[in-house]
């Protein structure tokens, strides 16, 4: 198994003709992913690396009804329209790489996707990899890095940070384990898929024996994990690292790292997250490089 993407994944890439889109195409194709079509308004009729480009998602779907997943690379100002368009056209799995979308627009996209029962990963998601099966986005970069870090295995990885998704997958690999699916969920204040949304999928996934999380200061998405484990809705071992304890010694309101990484009052304090995660039975690493050994012992 694995979650979100596998051998059956057929992709439409929105924003395929842009810089970000063109960068992702060879990576995904090189990993054997089937990209059936691209969409860029005004560029219908062109092709990118042999992939036909359409003006609308509707046309792409008519020509390639096997499409079941969208991967989005449009610039921020066009993102809301692109997400709404693909949701309205019935796609149920959406990955959005675009960064820098306003919180208001993100909240609208997330709500619209939710109303339509769509699994929305991102925005600001570096990508998704189910090793040996499929990948979306640019997580892992070039295929030589991919082969070094990613190997089919039993550990799910969820990371708010794109760079740290790689590093976290690597720590798992260095512990002699492989990954079921690695997901960069993005570090925005409002996100399409949270830790708990994906833990629900990992709970059902028979390939996954344990999950490693990279969390951060800010927001309550890590707190939700503690509740989920406490209530018995997730039963596999979790090892987590929560970055940003240093910020508790800094003046409040400074933006470190991602858009969602902001402490407001007592909300979002890393020390609080660590405390309630530990109380719930989650293994919290003091330092990031200890994650591999922690999860290895737990499974």
């Amino acid at each position, binding site marked *: 198994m694995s979650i979100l993407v596998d051998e059956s994944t057929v992709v439409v890439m929105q924003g395929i003709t842009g810089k970000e889109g063109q960068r992702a195409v060879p990576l995904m194709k090189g990993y054997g992913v089937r990209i059936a079509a691209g969409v860029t308004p005004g560029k219908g009729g062109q092709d990118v690396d042999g992939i036909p480009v359409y003006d609308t998602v509707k046309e792409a779907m008519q020509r390639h009804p096997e499409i079941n997943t969208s991967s989005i690379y449009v610039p921020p100002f066009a993102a809301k329209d692109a997400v709404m368009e693909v949701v309205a056209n019935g796609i149920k799995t959406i990955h959005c790489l675009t960064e820098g979308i*306003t919180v208001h627009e993100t909240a*609208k996209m997330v*709500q619209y996707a939710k109303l339509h029962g769509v699994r929305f990963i991102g925005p600001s998601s570096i990508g998704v990899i189910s090793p040996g099966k499929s990948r979306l986005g640019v997580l892992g970069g070039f295929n030589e890095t991919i082969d070094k870090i990613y190997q089919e295995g039993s550990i799910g990885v969820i990371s708010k940070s794109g760079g740290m998704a790689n590093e976290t997958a690597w720590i798992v690999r260095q512990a002699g384990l492989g990954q079921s699916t690695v997901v960069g969920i993005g570090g925005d204040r409002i996100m399409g898929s949270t830790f708990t949304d994906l833990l629900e999928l990992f709970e059902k996934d028979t390939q996954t024996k344990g999950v490693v999380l990279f969390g951060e200061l800010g927001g309550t998405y890590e707190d939700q994990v503690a509740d989920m484990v406490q209530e018995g809705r997730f039963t596999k071992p979790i090892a987590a690292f929560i970055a940003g304890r240093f910020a508790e010694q800094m*003046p409040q309101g400074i933006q470190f*790292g991602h858009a969602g990484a902001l402490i407001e009052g007592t909300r979002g304090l890393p020390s609080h997250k660590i405390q309630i995660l530990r109380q719930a039975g989650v293994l919290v690493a003091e330092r990031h*490089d200890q994650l591999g050994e922690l999860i290895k012992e737990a499974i």
Partner: protein
Amino acid sequence: MRLYEFEGKELLKKYGVPVPDSRLIRWGASDSGVSTADESTPSVLLQSGGGCMAKAQVLSGLRGKHGGIKRCCTLAELQEGLSMLGSTFNNEPVHALLLEQVISFSHQYYVSFVFDTDTRSPMMILSAQGGIAIEDNVTSGTGTMVRIKIDPLLGLQEWNIREAAVSLGLSKEQTARITPVLLSFYRCFEQEDAVQVEVNPLVEVSAGESAGAFIALDAKIELCDDGAYRHKERVYSPRVAGFARPPTERELLVKEVNAKDYRGTVKYIELDGDIGFLAASGGGSITCMDALMSCGGRPSNYTEFSGSPPTEKVYHLTKALLSKPGLRGLWIVGAIANFTRVDETLQGVAQALEEIKPGYPIVVRRSGPNEEEGLEILRRTAAACGLDLVAYGAEMPMTKTAKILMDKVNNVNGHIKENTKENNTIDEQEQRSVC
């Protein structure tokens, strides 16, 4: 970006929210105090009856509690109020003062529009106990607050407000009067791409012809930086959110460097430590700040570069960072990059090191595309310039290199550990004390 009260009130006014009559007095460009053009204003406000409020325009909170707001009924009091101009409040220089008409009120409310990560929606938070007292409740989440989830696709609806009004115990008339004000707040929140609009207090006027009207006595607005492209008309002075200080020269320089080239992002926030910190990626940089501080390192700055910035951008960032006096060590660190070209970015670092030739220890850990070439560039520069530099790739976990650096920094005048056995030494030390 956090707005000053007067900037926030200008935005609220634009959406039809009633605010008190006011005049803004800025600290004169000549540093000689109040500019003459504004001198007549205060007395006019005094004559209008009830005196005026003198409010220091600072980004720090709790102004009311800590003397940043003064009521002035006499000329002497007004002089005292004006003396705040050019002074400091909570270490923050007061560059502007808002003189406002005094409003008599019967009730004060707290109103805030924010984004809630539990419902992933905008949220309206209301309390019938506004004013100074509520500030502790807001941060601790206690007290009698009504929290109303707003559907982002619909925006604030009248029935949302009715539900809130029932919970607060507002009368039919009060509800009718507060409704358009709250709708205006929400329009401001949404159309200005704000992440927070907080008004504390929103008051109900007690006397005169506008008795019963709702007026916003304060405004705390935080704008979403990602929305800036839609609001090109805005001209706000530069500021560092969260810090009660204006941006430093180096911060402004890096900001300029960042804006000049759209490729990649470089960020720099100055802190008061002595370890230069040059880190890649948002998540990686905060992970490494933790690692450094847990080993007793005091970062001289927070930095982040990401999204494949060109060589020149990294060069300027590094140069700015290294120009801070008193550094005792430098940590160049990053996770396994997905895309950022390690050789291109480290080339920028190498150029800056070549120019400055720091004498303190430098530890590098970086991995990703063209990793070997990148690390080699630094090693060559180190050899050519006689730098005390050690560079690691993927084989060495990122966060372990914090301790390697701090050991070097702390032993810099004593003996330096045997390099060939470094990995083993670190692991052994760790088993004794996990830093």
